[in-house]
């Protein structure tokens, strides 16, 4: 065993760090780096700018094959890059295209689909959104009712999607629709790539509790989609969906972000004096920050293991490590929530101030992060659903649904 990076990997890490250090100097106030920031009016231009610089260096989507615009990185190299970005709270950009739709296409897309979609993702030019959830199909995604009916060379799609993050800035959507209404649940669903400019698509904003605009409802009203935009076979979309879900769940960036937050809080505690003492002298604060550091390192160690197993085990490992990825997701999102809560607690009365108050520590970043973390425990499979998966696939316990 050897936990050290090679000198080449170390050099790569330093290059990424230097890049992000510089790029993040122009970040908007109270920037947390979550989806809410990236897709906001102020944040999106910044996101695009950073991502196109990354793309110029071949660092935006390094892990795709070279023939489709990637740099052919290994999973470990991808890990180094994700950790550096996470540490600097850098915009991850088009996470839906880069992290979910793209990898799915690499495995099951047609050559035409790969050629059409992967290069613009790698160049940071095409943004994707995920059109899966519906008002009555949340955790129970297979209950979805949006219909796609074959009509010549096209499908005609009708229905309503919801919680579509970034649909208001996205160019394309990967979405699910029922192609066989006779069969129940997961059978009879197909996976489509849809141009968001298609006639019949209406995007309606859903505003989050802190006032940010992340989500949208997307209405499909007789939207024509060419049959060649279906991924996988007709009615076999669920298998593709499962694959995308697994790509969705890694987590090293989040833990790296926590590390940076803890470092920032430690510095704050050393510099800040209330009631005649620096915060760093307060044993309760020391204990809480130490606890966060412990939990963060435990999470990072898990993320490294997942990456290692995927690096050495190939595609098959994506399925066998799914329960670990679920663990990383639920552990990571709940930890991020604690980091924010503890930061607020450290700030005392200042912890309730938000962006716009000159008195707000770090411009209100942590209270914003706290509200975003509420969504983090729900998005991409709720904490409850993740624990179900861990129980079933990690422990072999009987399925309850």
């Amino acid at each position, binding site marked *: 065993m050897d936990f050290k990076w090679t000198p080449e990997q170390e050099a790569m890490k330093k290059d990424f760090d230097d890049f992000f250090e510089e790029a993040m100097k122009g970040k908007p106030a109270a920037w947390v780096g979550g989806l809410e920031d990236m897709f906001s009016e102020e944040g999106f231009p910044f996101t695009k700018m950073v991502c196109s610089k990354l793309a110029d260096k071949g660092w935006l989507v390094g892990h795709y094959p070279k023939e489709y615009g990637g740099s052919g990185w290994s999973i470990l190299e991808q890990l180094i890059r994700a950790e550096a970005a996470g540490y600097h709270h850098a915009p991850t950009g088009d996470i839906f295209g880069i992290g979910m739709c793209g990898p799915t296409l690499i495995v099951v897309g047609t050559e035409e689909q790969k050629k059409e979609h992967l290069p613009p993702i790698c160049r940071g030019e095409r943004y994707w959104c995920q059109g899966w959830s519906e008002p009555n199909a949340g955790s129970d995604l297979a209950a979805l009712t949006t219909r796609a009916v074959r009509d010549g060379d096209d499908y005609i799609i009708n229905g309503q999607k919801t*919680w579509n993050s970034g649909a208001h800035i996205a160019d394309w959507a990967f979405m699910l629709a029922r192609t066989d209404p006779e069969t129940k649940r997961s059978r009879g669903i197909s996976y489509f790539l849809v141009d968001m400019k298609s006639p019949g698509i209406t995007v309606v904003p859903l505003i989050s509790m802190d006032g940010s605009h992340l989500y949208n409802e997307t209405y499909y009203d007789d939207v024509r989609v060419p049959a060649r935009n279906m991924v996988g076979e007709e009615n076999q979309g669920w298998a593709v969906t499962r694959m995308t879900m697994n790509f969705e769940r890694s987590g090293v960036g989040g833990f790296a972000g926590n590390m940076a937050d803890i470092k920032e809080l430690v510095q704050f505690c050393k510099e800040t004096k209330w009631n005649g003492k620096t915060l760093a002298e307060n044993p309760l604060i020391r204990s809480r920050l130490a606890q966060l550091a412990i939990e963060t390192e435990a999470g990072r160690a898990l993320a490294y293991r997942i990456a290692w197993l995927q690096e050495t085990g190939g595609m098959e490992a994506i399925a066998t490590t799914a329960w670990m990825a679920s663990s990383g997701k639920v552990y990571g999102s709940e930890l991020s929530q604690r980091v924010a809560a503890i930061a607020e607690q450290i700030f005392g009365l200042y912890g309730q101030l938000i962006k716009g108050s000159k008195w707000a520590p770090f411009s209100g970043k942590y209270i914003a992060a706290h*509200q975003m973390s509420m969504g983090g425990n729900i998005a991409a499979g709720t904490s*409850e659903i993740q624990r179900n998966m861990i129980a079933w696939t990690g422990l072999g316990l009987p399925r309850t649904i």
Partner: protein
Amino acid sequence: MNLDFTEEQDMLRTAAKDFLTTECDKTMVRQLEEDEKGYSPELWKKMADLGWMGLIFPEKYGGTEMDFMSLIILCEEMGRNILPGPFFSTVVLCGNAILDSGTDVQKDEYLTKIASGDIIMSWVQTEPTNTWGAGGIEVKAVADKDDFVINGTKLFVADAHVADWMIVVTRTKGGAKPEDGVTLFLVDAKSPGITAIPQPTVGMDKLCEVNFKDVKVPKGNIIGKLDKGWEVVEKTLLKASTCKCIESVGAMQATVDMTNAYIKDRVQYGRPLAAFQVLQFDMANALIKTTTLRELTYRAAWEAGEGLPEAATDVAMAKSWMNDTFYWVVERGVQLHGAIGTTRDHDMGLYYRRSKCAECQFGDSDFLKEKIAKDIGL
């Protein structure tokens, strides 16, 4: 022993609940969050007409002379419904301070006007020093003939921007103990030299930065005794803390009820969410927390109202337990609603955002637990 409320108090609760649901619906709550003043003058007037402002004041000052527990009932309902505005500052903080420690002249002057709804008051205590303890009071008042002159910056002061009068906690003398040398003044908010700037908070509850520049106050405006004002602060915060706790209990119960109804209604995997035992456990824990806090708060509030010595520890315990439970309950409430609970249009967020602000009022858990540790003999 008698742990029941009186019939009159039960009626007050029902009336308050009905009034608030019709007169201050969630659309209005949202409007008032964005509103510069943060309250509705029409609603304020109606509340005064109902006798809420003078609920616990003697009749001779225009009050209805009910006991402190009646105010607790009112606050519970205000928390359940969410009532934005300066009721807490005016009645709970300043009203109680004047009632308990003011002179007859002061009572006649201010309680009467509070009861009639004619004045709004603000309790001006905390500073950039970031504590509710006496050590945090650094804004100075210096004697100058028949006046005192106040200089300095206060922070996190609710409703100062709309107040007619303020009670300002100042330092008039340095000493070995921070509790000594604190003096409270009734200050006309229109006095030259005062500026109040609301700061955006997570609960949008109009906490202000208040600057005092050579603000003159007559000696006669001292509440309590010169240099001995901390006693007044302690007495006032004891009562105010229980009101904040019960307001939070009301809010917690509202989210429990809302979430309970939602999970019974929402179907996933062909059954109501309520059929998943893990969610039932969350709900059961939420109910345990809400109920224990309610009962502890009633006791602490009764003790505070009766002026009993054991109130000090029990109130600190109730407030500390509130800090731990309010957030927990609303966090679960949002989680059990799924994505819909994270949106601005959903009421859950209104309660969730208030939990942080409630925690910040009158002492966080570390501050309170240190006091409790001493009280239990450590």
